[in-house]
């Protein structure tokens, strides 16, 4: 039973975000965004952006998701829809019906003036269309082609396609906000900040390799938001502080757990409503999440880095930077590049003892092929791996007891393999000492 030693700086996240959102209030043109929708460009075009998924995650995190899910369902929203969308739509309907009694102040929504969505999964595009219909506002969809061919040439071609769409998005945003000129300086400045952030985040993910890990991967997952939402110097400074706190721990051998015995990689997004349950559960068994692809930015296998070496940034051409970044991530990546970008690169170097793949019930792109991956982790890397059926924001698909059993079993497998190895080593030593 290890005790958890969380990073101090994570406490700063929510006040920092509140401050940021406040600073956005003066925009009178709000875009609702789902999926990768070129957030960077919004400010420069006089548009503030509201991330639908973050909002749903926040609601789930506050254990307030179920009522909205059920409210929507009663009105024809399918239970199998992406739970981000389910919550959001349920909330929208409740608001439309003036059901303020069931809506906490902090979840209230500012109706959108426009909607932008990135087509990376079955939901985003349709979700946006549906909202457009409800609010009678213009919708802009950015299409991200499926990167079945991961050759640089093909990826570059895709990036050019995306870039061309971003040019159109720029004009669309200006039209909506009524702002004359697109503020390139602002965008460049942001891009520079994002690059600085990416430098720190790369270092942070490397610091997770340290044994014992100076932080829990959950710390960094919950710290995604500043990088996604605010893209300014404040955010950069936050990650710098994050990095230095980890470094200081690494340099002095201080770990996130006082007794780290199992290092685990987590694949997939998190059940945001069970974050603390999970970290307590792992700590109970001296286990720690130390890596995963979710929310980590700018590592080797990132497609953008291949198109614009080394880190996907072209400060003179921010749109190209955004386009390159979007040309091959997560859902739209091919099976093989997923294996590299979401598995091997977070296993090699991280001293991983076990891998957990989260298969969100309402996110089928994530779920498909998870069993193949699990098998492959086992066979090719010799690391025990389980698939955990859950969900990112729908509590209906999470069973505490079941999860604990699965995790416990996993760690027992690790023990078994360790004993096996120890036996082999002893035999070898005996041979060398001439005892055989």
């Amino acid at each position: 039973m290890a005790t958890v030693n969380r990073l101090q700086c994570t406490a700063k996240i929510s006040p920092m975000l509140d401050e940021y959102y406040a600073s956005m209030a003066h925009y009178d043109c709000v875009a609702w965004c789902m999926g990768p929708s070129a957030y960077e460009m919004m400010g420069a075009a006089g548009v503030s952006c509201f991330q639908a998924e973050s909002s749903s995650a926040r609601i789930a995190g506050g254990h307030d998701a179920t009522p909205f899910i059920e409210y929507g369902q009663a009105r024809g929203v399918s239970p199998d829809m992406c739970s981000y969308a389910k919550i959001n739509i349920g909330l929208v309907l409740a608001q439309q019906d003036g059901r303020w009694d069931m809506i906490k102040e902090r979840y209230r929504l500012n109706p959108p003036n426009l909607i932008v969505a990135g087509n990376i999964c079955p939901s985003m595009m349709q979700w946006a269309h549906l909202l457009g219909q409800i609010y009678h506002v213009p919708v802009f969809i950015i299409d991200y082609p499926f990167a079945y061919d991961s050759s640089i040439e093909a990826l570059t071609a895709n990036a050019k396609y995306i870039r061309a769409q971003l040019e159109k998005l720029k004009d669309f945003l200006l039209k909506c906000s009524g702002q004359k000129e697109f503020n390139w300086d602002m965008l460049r400045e942001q891009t520079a900040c994002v690059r600085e952030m990416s430098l720190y985040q790369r270092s942070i993910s490397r610091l997770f390799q340290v044994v014992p890990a100076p932080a829990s991967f959950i710390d960094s997952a919950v710290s995604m938001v500043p990088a996604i939402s605010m893209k300014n110097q404040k955010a950069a400074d936050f990650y710098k502080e994050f990095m230095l706190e980890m470094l200081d721990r690494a340099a002095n051998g201080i770990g996130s757990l006082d007794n780290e015995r199992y290092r685990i990689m987590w694949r997939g997004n998190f059940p945001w409503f069970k974050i603390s349950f999970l970290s307590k559960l792992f700590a109970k068994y001296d286990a720690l999440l130390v890596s995963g692809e979710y929310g980590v930015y700018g590592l080797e296998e990132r497609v953008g880095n291949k198109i614009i070496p080394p880190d996907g940034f072209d400060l003179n051409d921010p749109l190209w930077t955004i386009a390159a970044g979007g040309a091959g991530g997560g859902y739209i990546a091919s099976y093989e590049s997923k294996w590299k970008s979401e598995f091997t690169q977070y296993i090699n170097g991280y001293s991983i003892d076990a891998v957990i793949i989260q298969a969100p019930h309402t996110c089928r792109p994530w779920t498909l092929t998870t069993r193949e991956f699990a098998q492959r982790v086992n066979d090719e890397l010799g690391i025990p791996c389980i698939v955990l059926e859950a969900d990112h924001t729908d509590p209906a698909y999470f069973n505490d007891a079941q999860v604990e059993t699965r995790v416990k079993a996993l760690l027992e497998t690790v023990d078994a393999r360790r004993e096996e190895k120890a036996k082999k080593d002893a035999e070898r030593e005996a041979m060398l000492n001439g005892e055989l």
Partner: protein
Amino acid sequence: MDVKNCTLQELLKEFAYRAHEPADAANAWKAKTGGKVIGIAGLDVPEPLIHAAGMLPVVLLDRDEAVTLANAHVEMHQCGYIRSLVDQAMKGELQYCDELLFHDCCHIVRMLGDAMHTFCDKIKKVQFIYLPPLLEYETAQKYAMKEMRKLRKRLEAIAGNPITDEALAASIKVYNTQKKLLIELYDIRRAYPGILKAVDVSNVVAAGMCMPKEDHIELLKRLIELLEPEKAKPVSTAIPVVVHGSLCERCDDYVLNDIEATGGVIVDDDLYVGSRYFNTLYDETIAPMDAIHKAYIKRVSPCPTRYEERNPGDYLADMVKNANAKGIIMVVVKFCEAHDYFYFTAHRRFQDLKIPEMLVETEHDSAPEGQLKTRLQGFFESMEV
């Protein structure tokens, strides 16, 4: 050839042939036994392990022919042994070896072995044994022992049969027999200066490094027999000297000949193809693995690539004294870096002890013109006053 009835000249010719054409003997042995041939580089490869596995160890020597193919791969400022070995490999002259086994007798040789397959596709990955050079450090001694056990396992795998302690003990006996005969031969040379030309002695030893030990032993016995009558003849009046050097290769014939053509006679040597190869006997009173290990750490001649407290100059000074020699000639193979330090230390000691010493630097396939002779003659002239 008919060993029993051959003349001294015929016998010496046979040694010369065996010394220069290792492939013939190796292939003949293969044909006869169907066993594997292991080409080895480095004085400290524990040969008896190979012998005991029923395989034939052949020491890879430099070949006295111009390096051609290798020049494209190995710089001119690598030692001749390295360049010659690569050249032989590329010319396909090592094809008779089923495996190559390198001991890192120096950092360059080990790197060579490690990269051999990249120099020429005729060679597959080379086997290694790493024996720490720190002969007097207990930790290193233990490491060497473990490494030898590892090698034993690997050799068993290659041979396809286990290496029993009995077989190993037997092999050690064979090696000691050869060593003792060579030691006897050297005693004769010290007692009767000039009884054999230095070049002939070099061939005798070289043959023993390449051909099957059992056959070599037969030739040696006959040689010692044939030397009996020679002892009656008058001994050389030239200036007796000791030769040291050429640590991984055959000391070039022209050096030995020039020494004996300009007023000197070689009465003892500390050469790789010479006393260094046989002067350390295996201790037959202890367990065979321990005997091999002991032979490594308790060697007779100091080696520039190993580390011992003793000053190499003292060892050589004693050799000069015991052989009643008047001076020593240090043959340093160019670009044998470890040897450069060894020489420097010894050189200073000779100066203290007032032992006349001359440095001869040799380079593969670039024999000097008159220069060496002049220097040697000058050296001997200076010893006359």
